[in-house]
């Protein structure tokens, strides 16, 4: 088990390095010079030249890359082109807001997805199943921003139950977390439904019933644990979707957070900031997937033995 984690960590580091490299080159081949953008259309060639030099943009791309990587390995992610402050500070300040949004929406997605999925599998082809499938279809096909606006209209404007915008209080978290979580809950519930149905068809379920176990025990202890294996994989994928969803959600609900920062940074071609933000996203994704893989080994003994 320990070896497994070590090996996974090594792989993760490679993934981080690779994604940093990829992002660096993609951002740099995009059209538009950051210095030009910062100075506006009235800049003189000298000021532009000076700025380019101070930002290091006059060097060749490869040299820039090595400079960046040297900094990166020392833990220095550079300074923002715009604010001239270390990007890492800027992002860390935003991290709690985004993490709480991500955490809350994953929780909503998992709980809602599991409950709905199991319900619809157990009542396969009955009224409940149809309703659940309808809901999940809706939630999957609805764009996040639209769902956000809808939620605001209903719960803030119309019913006036919950605040629409801002961050800080728990009440302010509810709507955006729902908005982000519901979409993932939809796809999760479909997967849970399918895997529960699949497990219900397994021969060992017949054995369990033949042993006289009450149906509740068969479902909650045996079927669910077996159905969890594909579900947990899906949670890893959902976490990735959440990151992109966070950008939209934060905008719609005027929340602070990394998503918002990234959008602005991209607009302004604030390359160091974008790069650092993507790095954080990559690390988040890797951590979630590492957790997923570790939890596999607790759910499924066959996987455990392979490690």
């Amino acid at each position, binding site marked *: 088990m320990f*070896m497994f984690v*070590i*090996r996974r960590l090594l792989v993760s580091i490679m993934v981080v390095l690779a994604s940093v490299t990829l992002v660096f080159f993609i951002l740099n081949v995009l059209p538009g010079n950051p210095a030009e953008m910062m100075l506006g259309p009235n800049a003189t060639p000298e000021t532009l030249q000076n700025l380019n030099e101070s930002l290091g943009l006059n060097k060749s791309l490869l040299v820039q890359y090595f400079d960046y990587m040297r900094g990166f390995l020392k833990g220095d992610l550079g300074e923002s082109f715009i604010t001239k402050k270390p990007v890492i500070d800027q992002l860390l300040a935003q991290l709690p807001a985004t993490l709480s949004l991500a955490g809350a929406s994953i929780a909503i997605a998992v709980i809602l997805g599991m409950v709905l999925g199991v319900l619809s599998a157990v009542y396969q082809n009955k009224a409940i199943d149809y309703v659940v499938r309808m809901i999940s279809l809706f939630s999957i096909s609805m764009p996040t921003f639209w769902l956000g606006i809808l939620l605001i209209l209903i719960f803030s404007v119309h019913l006036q139950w919950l605040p629409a915008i801002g961050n800080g209080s728990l009440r302010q978290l509810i709507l955006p977390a729902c908005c982000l979580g519901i979409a993932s809950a939809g796809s999760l519930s479909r997967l849970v439904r399918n895997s529960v149905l699949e497990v219900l068809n*397994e*021969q*060992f379920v*017949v*054995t*369990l*019933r*033949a*042993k*006289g*176990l*009450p*149906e509740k025990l068969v479902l909650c202890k*045996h079927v669910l*644990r*077996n159905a969890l294996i594909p579900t947990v994989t899906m949670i890893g994928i959902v976490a990735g979707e959440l990151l992109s969803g966070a950008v939209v959600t934060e905008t719609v609900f005027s929340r602070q957070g990394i998503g918002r920062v990234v959008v602005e940074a991209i607009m302004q071609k604030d390359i160091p900031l974008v790069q650092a933000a993507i790095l954080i996203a990559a690390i988040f994704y890797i951590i979630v997937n590492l957790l997923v893989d570790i939890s596999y080994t607790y*759910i*499924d*003994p*066959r996987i455990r*033995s392979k490690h």
Partner: protein
Amino acid sequence: MKPLLEVKELSVDFYKHGNAINVIDKVNLRINSGEIVCMIGESGSGKTITSLSIMRLIDFNSGKITHGDIELSGVSLVTLTKQEISVLRGKKIAMIFQEPMSALDPVFTIGDQIVEVLIRHTNLTKPAAREQAITLLQRVGIPEPEVRMKQYPYELSGGMRQRAMIAIALACEPELLIADEPTTALDVTIQAQILNLLKEIRDEFNMSILFITHDLGIAAEIADRIVVMYAGKVIEQAAVHELFEQPFHPYTSGLLQSVVTMDSDRTEKLFTINGSIPSLSELPTGCRFHPRCAYATDRCRSEEPELVSQSGREAACWNIEKLLHEPQQQVEPKRIIAADRAIAASFEHEQKQRLPLLEVRAIKKYFSIEQGLFKQNKKLIHAVDDVSFQIGKGETFGLVGESGCGKSTLGRVLLQLEQATSGQVLFEGKDVLRAPAGEWKSSRRDIQFVFQDPYGSINPRWKVGDIIGEPLWVHESLKGQAKRQKVVEVMELVGLNPAAYDRLPHEFSGGQRQRISIARAIALKPKFIVADEAVSALDVSVQSQIVNLMQELQGQLDLSYLFIAHGLNIVRHISDRIGVMYLGKLVEIATTDELFAHPAHHYTKALLAAIPLPDPTRRKTFLPLQGEMPSPANPPTGCRFHTRCTAATDLCKKIEPALQRIGPGHLAACHYPA
């Protein structure tokens, strides 16, 4: 005496898309306490549904009891509520299944799965239940029960898993045990052990067993009484001796005749019942067996016969009398002829050996499994270890052995689906394993294959004609009309209707699909076919049809076969010579009659002794071969069989016996050949 279980006129419907389909119709069944009743019939006859209905497990599959009653010690099970019946399940009636792997929950330990049922039905505390579970595992013959308690199903061998299943079933000492094909997925020596265990348990707990099987040999071995089912109905019921002596129903008689036994005449074609079992949605009128029955009259086509009692047994047929007056076929005297033939055959064989078509020389196939962070601990699986033999032109060479002995791997090496670790395969004198690129294709063309699962080895989205024609297209670039013409020829040869050219494989039955893969194999007129468990998944009567077909084709096309199988009776029928494998080694080779008459290696002897005989008067009295095949990752020293051999000595443990000639055409690898 009141029977323990009484099923009276039980009918069950299944609902599919709102339509009711009747799956069993007025089934009657009685089991006395301490009695073993075998239920036999082909797949689709309703055996399993009947057993699931007794447990009321059909409730979960949209099945419904529409008529009749089930009484267990006088209590009707049909009217019980869900809660009431679930209290009885596992306590009064327990069940074991065919595939012990899929029948156990893969993510819980064996211990948990036994403790669970004890907690449910007894007042035991958890620690007490664990103690009890260990005792149970010990009782069913699982070594080191404490260790096994903590293991997961995938860590156990098939035989051990089935024992664990039996332990679960025994936990609450039920009155009735339902065993649904419990040994079908197991090797014959393990099967013998499990059958023995079930008999012991019956005696010890005075338990009744309803044993479902398609194997008449097993029924003869273990049953007190036999119930025969066909297309959802019970068609005959009798005590085991009576049934084997004189069947009352033409279907039973057909089943008995299609059994391939160890002393049936090999030169004759196998007996087959025409046609196949009807699907439940298109049942024939009148007697459901009439389209396949040789005794059918007009009455049979219009009126359905009831199950009637006659001298203490029951049968559902209008023409029992006719069948009874038919002269009985006698097979006994042919045995002497067979032995004479063996001598002749072995001489003939030594002649043949001068012209081998295929020569396997010292083939080894090792797989490596890696462990550790940097894959430093390499372990080798000795799947095939130094195997040599020859196959003559026009000969059928049978390869037998338990699963994991390496017989299939060897077949795959010959087909070049697996790369040999070392050794040579000469086909018509040329080494095919190291052939230059140009010749490689031609040997592929001459060596074809037929596998066990026809559905797994053909593309389900292709038309039958394209499946059969694919090799023609690959090797001869035939297309369009030219291909079609050749394919139609081949289809006729294997007994497929050429009109089926454009249909998809799923529209065919298992037997028909196996014909498709045979057609595909012979399309290029190969010289040699590797048939790996080609008939193992088929019902007995279909099995015979396919074996007959393969033999006909052999005569017509001058084919040679390597026939790999674990079903020894069939191998005996089709093979000229047989090789026996154990743990990667070829331990004995002999002509078929010689091998069956005078097995020399102790493993071969045990293997032959483990085959259940379809004759209740010749039940086994000795103990079956003990233990299981060790892991091929670390095979025992010396003779690999010494861990299980009753004749083993110190010499066997130290020195590996070489495969040497002990008679004409007879080789064995044993220090003390019998």
